[in-house]
């Protein structure tokens, strides 16, 4: 593989630079700072990405311009072209595109494959090196470089065993790192640790459970003891409370006994209901007395009322009359209202009749009321109206049409002149036609009209047309114009018919035509035109005369039609005048006005009839009112009341009379009722008086039985007996209470004795002590119960606790997962170790090939001074031996010799790589500067040799080096 072209868009000092490179050796020569190292590093960067400086700055920024990066065109041994393009502003891979020969694009993976796994380290140390790399042997012994070199030969393609190892290491790291926490296996191990700790924390549950049970048992035992103590205290407190409570009760009992002994024991026999009996007897007596008094009161009232009643006998006697007049008086008001209403109706209808008379004007009522306003009569006015209107309109229209026709005729008669005679013209035209026939020798051949004649014909036609239009006959103008034009065109031809040999005849004809005998053809033609025009005018005048005759006939016809219409009109007006005179109406009255009068007559007749009917009703009402007044006045006088002329006062008097009759009737009825009541009351008074006497006797007997004279005395005795009974009841209550305190009736005596023997203050003090102690015990027991509740909850919780089981299950799962992952890890770790072992073995076995190749190069460069290189497997040190067997380690070699050894080793490695993979380009940066001239020349030979199989780019700032490598200078590229 070789670099065919380098294109740098921007890199350090380079901007938009392109270099094409040949296969084999290219010496790039330039002064210091010309950019050789930049060039080499650009190749590295395009292949492997951009570096940053140690300080982190951008390495080779594109300070000359452009985007940092560019393209490499690589040619393979199969002559395929691959383009690697890379750009980037910072360190790292940047934007990489690898374009394959088939146009496909790839990335880093494609590039790795293309470079057979060669990476930056390998390339920098083996294939593209300067003095710095050359002087360092260690760079050759790193496993990366070795692995790549041998990996390429291991038949493993682009990825070497080193890549596999790297991937496996990454896998292992992804699973577990010795001091990490994030990888899954580390996380699982951490989880195992924390789960175990949690489980250990919960492992005391059984002990907790036992402790809780033990504590509960102890508390329950203590509660039993406390309960017993509490019971004893409660008993003592109860006894003390009995003593305390019994003391006042006993004192009260003693006091009651003293009071009973001091009272009258005989009162104990007095019946408890004696006062009730007394009260009942008194109440019965008072009830009997009350009843008697009531009857007597009612009797007196009835008698007084009877005596006070006076009855109006006069009114009662004329009661029928009063009722009749009073009932008739109710109609007075209604009649008054009817009369007013009827009067208003009469006035309204009289007014309506007057309105109709005023509407027609000049008519009296009887004449208007007689007028026939029937439907046929009204229809007759409408028919007359229509007939009159039609006859008048027809007369006006026919008169208008006659006037118009006559005016039109008169106007035309003044405009049109009479037609002249055309005989002479016709004669002369016949002559001219003959002349034109003479001019033609044989057959009627019409000459072709020339341009002049055509123009003349058009002119004649147009002139004729203009005349027609000016005269108001445009159609005639067109016809005559066309005819005249045609004549102008034809006549000269006709004129040409006359042969020369008949000139005399022609002259005669000319004379007949009114032309001189020598008149030319043009004159003939001109005359023909004139004659044609005259003839056309004559025809036109004749047409006009005929038209006027027709119009005169039309005027006459229209005049007759007008006269007929006027006659019809007169007939209609005469008929209407007759209709009016029949009804004694003015002769000039139009039908519509007559219709108006008929309508007024109808309305007036209806109103007059209604007015007369209402007047009759009004008269009847007034007669009835007069009769009622006479009857009322007579009755009032008969009963001592004054009549009145005023209808309203009379009505009031009649109403008062009716009231007087009602009162007289009521008084009479009340007298009858009172007589009956008085009889019943007198029947009830006798037994009531007997009952009062009986109850008075019974009361006296009761008082006498208990030795008292009055009711109050009996009541005092009863109060004293009740007081004694209360004391006795209280004594029983107190004894019952005492039995309750003592616990039983039997225990009362004992308790009473104990109370009387103890001091109340001492009892109170002891009771307080006992209560306090009991309270303390109760609190202790309650607290113990509370604790037992808590312990029971804890015990239940512990019995049902699933956490520890759940944690153990989780631990089992985590341990299982960790074990599975650890096994996977172990398989990968062993695989890695086996791969490493295999690779080391492969390197050991392959190394002699590299060393042998290096030995040959070293011997060549040193001119055979050193013939052997020894590089023990696994040892980074290298020894060299001279042909004579002298052995030296690298530290013992001169700087130049050591660099020659390293160069030889690199050549060996390059060739080893190329044995299994496509040879890569080799880039060297002034590596010969420390070689002496002889060895430098030999090294140059070796480089040229290498260039036969590899593309070699050699950068130098020394002209002698360039010349040594390329004596012809044909392969040297100068960098400015």
């Amino acid at each position, binding site marked *: 593989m070789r670099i065919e072209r380098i294109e740098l868009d921007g890199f350090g000092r380079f901007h938009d630079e392109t270099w094409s490179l040949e296969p084999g050796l290219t010496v790039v020569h330039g002064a210091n700072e010309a950019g050789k190292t930049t060039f080499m590093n650009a190749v590295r960067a395009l292949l492997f990405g951009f570096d940053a400086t140690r300080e982190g700055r951008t390495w080779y920024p594109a300070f000359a311009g452009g985007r940092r990066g560019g393209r490499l065109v690589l040619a393979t041994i199969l002559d395929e072209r691959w383009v690697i393009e890379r750009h980037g502003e910072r360190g790292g891979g940047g934007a990489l595109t690898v374009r394959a020969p088939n146009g496909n694009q790839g990335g880093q993976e494609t590039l790795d494959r293309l470079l057979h796994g060669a990476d930056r380290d390998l390339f920098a140390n083996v294939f593209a090196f300067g003095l710095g790399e050359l002087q360092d042997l260690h760079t050759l012994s790193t496993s990366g470089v070795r692995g790549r070199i041998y990996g390429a030969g291991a*038949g493993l393609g682009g990825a070497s065993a080193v890549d596999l190892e790297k991937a496996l290491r990454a896998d292992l790291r992804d699973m*577990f790192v010795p001091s990490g926490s994030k990888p899954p296996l580390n996380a699982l191990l951490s989880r195992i640790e924390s789960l175990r700790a949690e489980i250990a924390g919960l492992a005391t549950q*059984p002990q907790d459970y036992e402790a809780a049970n033990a504590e509960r048992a102890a508390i329950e035992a203590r509660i039993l003891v406390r309960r017993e103590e509490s019971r004893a205290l409660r008993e003592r407190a109860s006894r003390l409370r009995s003593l305390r409570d019994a003391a006042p009760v006993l004192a009260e009992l003693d006091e009651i006994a003293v009071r009973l002994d001091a009272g009258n024991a005989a009162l104990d026999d007095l019946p408890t209901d004696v006062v009730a009996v007394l009260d009942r007897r008194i109440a019965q007596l008072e009830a009997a007395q009350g009843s008697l008094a009531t009857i007597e009161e009612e009797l007196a009232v009835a008698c007084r009322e009877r005596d006070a009643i006076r009855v109006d006998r006069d009114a009662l006697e004329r009661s029928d009359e009063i009722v009749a007049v009073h009932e008739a008086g109710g109609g007075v008001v209604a009649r008054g209202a009817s009369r007013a209403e009827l009067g208003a109706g009469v006035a309204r209808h009289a007014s309506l009749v007057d309105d109709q008379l005023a509407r027609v004007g000049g008519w009296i009522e009887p004449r208007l009321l007689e007028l026939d306003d029937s439907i046929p009569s009204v229809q007759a006015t409408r028919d007359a109206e229509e007939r009159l209107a039609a006859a008048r309109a027809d007369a006006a229209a026919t008169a208008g049409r006659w006037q118009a026709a006559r005016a039109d005729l008169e106007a035309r008669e003044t405009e049109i002149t009479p037609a002249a005679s055309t005989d002479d013209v016709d004669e002369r035209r016949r002559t001219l036609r003959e002349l034109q026939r003479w001019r033609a020798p044989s057959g009627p051949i019409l000459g072709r009209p020339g341009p002049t004649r055509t123009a003349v014909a058009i002119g004649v036609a147009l002139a004729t047309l203009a005349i027609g239009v000016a005269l108001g006959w445009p159609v005639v103008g067109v016809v005559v114009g066309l005819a005249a034009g045609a004549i102008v065109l034809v006549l000269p031809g006709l004129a040409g018919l006359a042969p020369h040999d008949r000139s005399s005849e022609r002259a005669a004809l000319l004379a007949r035509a009114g032309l001189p005998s020598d008149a030319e053809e043009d004159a003939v033609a001109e005359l023909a035109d004139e004659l044609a025009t005259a003839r056309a005018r004559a025809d036109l005048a004749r047409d006009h005369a005929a038209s006027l005759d027709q119009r005169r006939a039309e005027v006459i016809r229209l005049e007759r039609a007008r006269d007929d219409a006027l006659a019809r009109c007169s007939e209609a007006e005469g008929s209407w005048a007759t209709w009016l005179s029949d009804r004694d109406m003015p002769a000039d009255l139009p039908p519509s006005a007559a219709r108006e009068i008929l309508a007024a007559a109808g309305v007036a007749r209806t109103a007059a009839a209604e007015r007369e009917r209402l007047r009759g009703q009004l008269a009847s009402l007034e007669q009835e009112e007069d009769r009622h007044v006479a009857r009322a006045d007579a009755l009032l006088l008969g009963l001592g009341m004054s009549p009145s002329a005023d209808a309203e006062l009379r009505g009031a008097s009649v109403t008062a009379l009716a009231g007087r009759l009602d009162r007289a009737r009521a008084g009479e009825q009340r007298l009858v009722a009172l007589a009956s009541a008085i009889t019943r009351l007198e029947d009830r008074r006798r037994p009531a008086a007997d009952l009062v006497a009986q109850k008075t006797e019974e009361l006296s007997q009761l008082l006498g039985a208990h030795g008292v004279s009055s009711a109050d005395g009996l009541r005092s005795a009863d109060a004293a007996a009740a007081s004694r009974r209360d004391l006795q009841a209280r004594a029983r209550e107190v004894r019952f209470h005492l039995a309750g305190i003592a616990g039983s009736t039997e225990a009362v005596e004992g308790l009473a004795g104990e109370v009387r023997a103890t001091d109340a203050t001492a009892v109170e003090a002891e009771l307080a002590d006992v209560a306090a102690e009991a309270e303390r015990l109760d609190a202790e027991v309650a607290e113990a119960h509370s604790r037992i509740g808590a312990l029971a909850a804890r015990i239940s919780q512990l019995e049902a606790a699933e956490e520890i089981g759940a944690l153990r299950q989780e631990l089992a*799962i985590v341990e299982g*997962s960790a074990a599975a992952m650890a096994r996977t*890890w172990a398989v*990968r770790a062993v*695989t890695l170790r*086996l791969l490493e072992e295999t690779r080391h073995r492969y390197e050991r076995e392959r190394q002699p090939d590299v060393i042998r190749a290096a030995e040959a190069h070293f011997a060549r460069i040193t001119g055979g001074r050193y013939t052997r290189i020894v590089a023990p497997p696994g040892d980074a040190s290298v020894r060299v031996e001279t042909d004579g067997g002298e052995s030296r380690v690298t530290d013992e070699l001169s700087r130049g010799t050591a660099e020659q050894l390293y160069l030889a080793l690199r050549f060996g490695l390059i060739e080893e790589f190329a044995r299994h993979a496509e040879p890569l380009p080799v880039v060297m940066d002034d590596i010969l500067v420390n070689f002496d001239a002889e060895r430098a020349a030999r090294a140059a030979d070796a480089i040229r040799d290498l260039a036969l199989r590899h593309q070699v780019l050699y950068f130098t700032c020394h002209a002698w080096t360039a010349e040594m490598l390329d004596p012809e200078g044909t392969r040297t590229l100068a960098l400015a």
Partner: protein
Amino acid sequence: MPIGYAWRAVSSLESFRFLHTGDLHLDSPLEGLSSEAPPEIRGTLRAATTDAWRNVVDLALREKVDFVVIAGDVFEVASPTLLGQTRFRDGLARLAAANIPSFVVHGNHDPADGVAWSPSLAFPALAHRFGTAAGESAPVLRDGREIARIHGRSYPRPAVTENYATGMRGADGAPFNIGLLHTNVGDRPGHANYAPCSLDDLRASGMDYWALGHIHQPGKIVDDPPAYYSGIPQGRDPGELGARGCFLVDVDAGGRVTASFVATDVVRWQPIDLPITDLRDDEALMAAARVAIGAALEEADERSLVVRLRLSDRGPLHASATRPGYVDHLKLLLSEEFDGVRPFAWVESVRDATRSEVDLDVRRETPDFVGDFLRTVSAARRSARSTDPEEHARWQALLRSSVASLFEESPRGRRYLRATAPDDELLVGDIIDDAEALGLDLLLAVEGDG
């Protein structure tokens, strides 16, 4: 299903039925899960042992047994939980409420040293716990008549090396003698050899039935007298596969014993091996996995399954299977596939054990880097059997050092991955096999790229 039968002439015997269980290991976690289950499934797994015990009690009540014997290891001394003990006591109380007495001995996981058993938990009167002294027996009464006599002895401490069986003798006057013991009969490998005894010891005991505990695999170990391990009611780790439960034992009037195994487990471990030989693509793999899991569910007797899927063999899918994340995605897809199915089939893990189709023998002889790698692996394997101590030590050191950073140098790794840390045998065994496959896959992939 009757799986045992024996006969003994006892004239005064009444027929009866009892339930034989043991190794409940209540409230202990399910071990060996290598991934987190969805919450609902996690709840089921978490409660599996206590739910299985509830199933045992339900079975006893449903079958109206005359009594229940429990052959030790009710809990784990290393992780006693009150919840487990409470559940156990509640179960015994339910039995007692149905007038079913229960008989319990302590085993190595719950010795009667007062640590595992909370003295405060009150057991019902009908529950009898045997003490640690030899010669204790308890009669089983029905209507006032003894129908059987139970002989039992509890462990006083976790590790009992004494032969308890020889000290347990059937009583001559008892209608039917049952020996109840937590023991390793015949020094079974893979189990702690506690209270060891031999089959002859059992035969010579004069018992009519041996109700044994300690071995979690249920089954009969001797015919005369019939001796059964009840097994564990709920498998607790991937090693305890298949149906787990207890024995329902019928004894007829002639003393003939018929023992029927009844599954009481809630969830089962289900390893599924899926060879990829004939599977062309991912779809085919999914379909095959679906069918295999579905078939397992069908056969699981209405139990839920914890499925461990192992892709094996060689086939075209090998390259896919080795891709990072492939098996995780497969696990996810299968989990989604069976999500919501009840009983559930939870795919706990998918392991890729497939191998490249490359002929290793041919490739090993090829003089290239891949050949070198395979030869290196062979050399490492051979070193385990090498007579050259230097070579052996070199490889041992090389392999050990490769994993040392995790298993030895990391304090947490050393502490918590002790059980997982590969020993020399494993390193040159399973681990190196997988490493060879992985390395080969990686190299072939790179070679393919090249």
